[in-house]
């Protein structure tokens, strides 16, 4: 038996497709995931369809059922690819059903016509049925091929090449089928057959590269992206003022490295540190969902519901990095996962390092604000003291000045002194140099002493009413610091009651806790400003407060100092109606 070139090529194509189908099945058996399964079905069935015709020719064994098997295998190969596409980019149930019915219907038609009138030269009906079958198959295959091509844009290089290889491979097969389906005269026919066989042969390695690219090929593909990755890691080494800034700079790299749709970073305390590619709300929802499903506790990394999650053991607690797949960015390959794991590790280290620059920035900021307080807030009281003293000196105010003037000057000097104390205490606290000199004392005495020191700060009338129990309320604490807390709270009550009124101070004890509650009838604090109240320099700026001098440190210090004593300072307020500030300290045990 002498074979023509066209025959040799045709057999080689069949053999190549069989081989491709076998490899696809082996790859699927190794991984056992559905996506590879559908691809194995598509390629395996293509192999089956490709091998039956030549086998029949070679063995001379012709049976109608073999034709049916061929038809079924061919149509299944088309449906397999459609299902593969469905796992990446979901199709509606209707579309899948329609495809299945059309594929089965056209195959049945061809089979029926073939059995009814077997002939060497196909009848017109048979030709039309065969054409319909090829068209149905081609549509089922072309749609995924184009969709994969479209999905490949913006993907990391390995995925991009794989998707494109699959796409090009299938489009090539469609081209071959359509060309073969057109009737040709003898001479042209054989050269066309040679050409299509050559194209088909070329498509086999292309498809192979699509579903299972060998390591060396991935290496070649990735070469340029490796540079990207190095750049991304280098970027982490660059100076970032804050952790949030660093995280925000890192996320675009994350999205690019794995071809994610969006990504976010959750800080050690559970707060969202940065978001890229979506809104804060959606990131929050996704974080809650991950939390709710317990995915975060399941292991070092979870690829579930389209998300890659990498825990980041940060100094301030374990946070995580999450990258999400989107409708056109459906798969995270092994390379992407391992690359992101490396990147998450570098990011963790970088975030911890950025904490240092964040701290330096905070110190710098504190210095600037201290200077501002010194240059502006202290000038107010200074102006007044200097003004009255100069007026006493030049005789504007006669000897034996009205006692109010002396009172005002003393209160302004107190104000300056308290601002300086607050600045010094804050600076000590910043450097963790606050050393408490604890002693046992009666909190009632401390309250009484603070009240004796209270001076008017404005010309309006305030009535202080202190309700003090008859039994001692003993605490073990730093007496000076407790006095500082109390005077800050009482001063605030007066300062922020510009229309005057009553300030009620209630001293009590309950359940092992000493309590001093200071209630005023002042301007109050808006609900939305409550969070800012106890922060460092957290002065609430509005028309009602802008005239009130202050450092923005008083309540911050009060709370921090109280917490150092295992107590707390809390606030309740209604805007326009007044506030209650409560100091709580643990009662001393029996002496």
């Amino acid at each position, binding site marked *: 038996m002498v074979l023509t070139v066209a025959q040799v090529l045709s057999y080689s194509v069949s053999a190549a497709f069989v081989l491709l189908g076998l490899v696809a099945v082996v790859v699927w058996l190794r991984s056992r995931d559905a996506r590879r399964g559908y691809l194995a079905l598509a390629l395996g069935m293509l192999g089956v369809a490709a091998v039956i015709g030549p086998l029949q020719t070679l063995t001379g064994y012709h049976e109608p059922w073999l034709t049916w098997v061929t038809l079924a295998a061919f149509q299944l190969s088309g449906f397999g690819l459609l299902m593969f596409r469905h796992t990446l980019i979901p199709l509606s149930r209707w579309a899948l059903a329609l495809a299945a019915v059309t594929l089965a219907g056209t195959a049945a038609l061809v089979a029926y016509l073939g059995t009814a009138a077997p002939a060497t030269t196909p009848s017109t009906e048979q030709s039309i049925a065969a054409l319909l079958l090829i068209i149905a198959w081609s549509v089922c295959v072309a749609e995924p091929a184009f969709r994969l091509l479209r999905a490949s844009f913006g993907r990391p290089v390995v995925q991009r090449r794989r998707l494109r290889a699959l796409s090009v491979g299938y489009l090539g097969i469609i081209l071959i089928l359509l060309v073969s389906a057109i009737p040709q005269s003898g001479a042209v026919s054989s050269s066309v057959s040679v050409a299509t066989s050559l194209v088909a042969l070329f498509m086999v390695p292309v498809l192979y590269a699509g579903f299972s690219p060998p390591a060396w090929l991935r290496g070649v593909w990735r070469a340029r992206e490796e540079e990207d990755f190095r750049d991304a890691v280098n970027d982490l080494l660059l100076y970032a003022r804050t952790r949030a800034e660093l995280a925000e700079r890192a996320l675009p790299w994350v999205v690019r490295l794995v071809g994610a749709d969006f990504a976010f970073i959750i800080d050690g305390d559970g707060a969202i540190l940065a978001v890229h590619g979506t809104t804060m709300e959606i990131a929050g929802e996704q974080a809650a969902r991950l939390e709710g499903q317990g995915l975060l506790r399941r292991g070092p990394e979870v690829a579930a519901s389209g998300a890659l999650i990498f825990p980041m053991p940060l100094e301030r607690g374990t946070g995580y990095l999450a990258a999400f797949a989107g409708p056109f960015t459906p798969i995270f390959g092994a390379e992407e996962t391992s690359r992101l794991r490396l990147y998450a590790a570098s990011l963790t280290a970088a975030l911890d390092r950025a904490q240092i620059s964040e701290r330096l920035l905070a110190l710098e900021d504190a210095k600037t604000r201290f200077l501002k307080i010194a240059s502006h807030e202290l000038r107010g009281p200074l102006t007044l003291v200097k003004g009255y003293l100069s*007026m006493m000196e030049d005789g504007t*105010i006669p000897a034996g000045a009205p006692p109010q003037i002396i009172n005002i000057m003393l209160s302004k000097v107190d104000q300056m002194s308290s601002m300086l104390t607050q600045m010094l205490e804050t600076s000590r606290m910043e450097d963790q140099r606050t050393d408490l000199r604890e002693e046992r004392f009666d909190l009632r005495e401390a309250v009484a002493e603070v009240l004796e020191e209270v001076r008017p700060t404005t010309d309006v009338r305030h009535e202080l009413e202190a309700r003090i129990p008859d039994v001692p309320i003993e605490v073990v604490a730093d007496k000076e610091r407790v006095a500082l807390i109390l005077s800050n709270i009482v001063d605030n009550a007066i300062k922020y009651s510009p229309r005057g009124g009553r300030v009620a101070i209630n001293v009590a004890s309950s359940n092992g806790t000493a309590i001093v509650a200071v209630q005023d009838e002042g301007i109050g604090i808006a609900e939305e400003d409550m969070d800012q109240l106890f922060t460092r320099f957290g002065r609430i700026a509005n028309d009602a407060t802008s*005239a009130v001098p202050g450092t923005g440190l008083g309540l911050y210090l009060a709370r921090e100092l109280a917490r150092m004593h295992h107590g707390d300072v809390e606030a309740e307020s209604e805007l326009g109606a007044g506030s209650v500030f409560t100091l709580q300290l643990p009662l001393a045990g029996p002496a």
Partner: protein
Amino acid sequence: MKTVNIVVDWGVIRLPSGTQPRPGSSGQPAAESEPGTEQKGRGLRILMVEDDPALSMMYRVRLEAAGYTVALATDGEEGLRQITEGAGFDLVFLDVGLPGIDGLAVLESIRNSTQSETVPVVILSNYNEPPMRQRGLSLGALAYLVKSEITPSWLVARIPGWAKR
């Protein structure tokens, strides 16, 4: 349980009438017009826009001692209202850090209003920042003074030079 009541209130300061500073006793650098010419002050109306009541009271004590009639405004809006409602002030002392609209914005509005564009304004601020100073002067303030660097008597000595005649 015992209840302690304390009242904090410094009331209004009134100096004995006819109080006058001793001439030349101020430790300030020599003024352009010597103190002692303060009798000119009689009849002139001065507006003090200052949000710190203790400070405005101090300045009022000194200005009234020099025979000026003093009106007070505690925020920018109030100050602007008094100026543009044609109260006919001979001089305005204007603070910069004010609740609501700040002093520089008040000054800009004064200059844009036909009733008040010629009112003499002197800025009294505790913000000693060059851009603020420049902005104030470019808006036509006669002077930009830092409160903690001057005394009330020094200020009074300069009023005749600033006030509208």
